[in-house]
């Protein structure tokens, strides 16, 4: 039936974040980043308000990737480092 077909193929609506939400999230990511110099963080956070959506998205995606990569790295290596530290004590 045509109606059923429509229901099955209906995509879930995209959850779009407002620019304000993105800017707030970007501030959090800048705070935790190890790629950005500590001395430059405040300056960068202050500039967020002047950034357009494209710039916010670009920096946000980059810093989100940092979080993802770091999570994997720590998952793979922190245990090894811990056991090595235990051995040397």
């Amino acid at each position, binding site marked *: 039936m045509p109606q059923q077909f429509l229901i099955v193929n209906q995509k879930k609506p995209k959850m779009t*974040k407002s620019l304000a939400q993105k800017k707030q999230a970007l501030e959090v990511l800048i705070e*935790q980043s*190890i790629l950005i110099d500590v001395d430059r963080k405040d300056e960068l956070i202050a500039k967020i308000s002047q950034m357009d959506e494209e710039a916010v998205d670009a920096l946000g995606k980059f810093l989100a990737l940092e*979080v993802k990569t770091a999570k994997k790295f720590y998952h793979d290596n922190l245990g090894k480092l811990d056991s*090595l530290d235990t051995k040397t004590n």
Partner: protein
Amino acid sequence: MTDQETGHNDETQEIRIKSAGHDDITQEIEIKSRGHNDITQEINIQPEVAELTKIFTELGASNELLWKVMWADKDVRESLKATARALLNVGISIADFVPVIGDAISLLADAAKWTQFDLTPNVSKEIAVGSEGLELLSGGFLPTHAIETILQIRHDAPQIKKGLKRTKKIWTAHEKAIKSKRVADAAAVFDSKSKET
């Protein structure tokens, strides 16, 4: 070329040097050599140094950006330098087994003591030069650079351990931060996969 042709028997020559560090760390360099044409060399440095190097190498390969924060920390930086120094010295000690070429490398390493590229900064010039005398007596076969290597590793071991602890502290703190709900939620905003829910 057979052993008979080269005049070398399948005799195994073994040199083993052990030194007990101040804080109960046993440092061991074991070098085995079997004939000039079939040299089997094994060097076992402190396991923690080897393991730390492996981790640092993986770190470089998998996430070079993490170097930045580690290099910024004085203790970790000194530890990395000490680890790199230990590896270079072990490499030179292996090369020192080969007469003439190895001796030249060992002599260059000693000559570097008078420059800013000193690989054994905590070993005196007298010991470095004196060990070359032993080299001459052995006809260039003794890997005398191993003496300086052991003394330097013995000196560097506490620094390497300190750097290890500091690295652990930095990694643990950062892992805790990125695993927090606040950061995870912020990252999800920019993660294209989690946007469509």
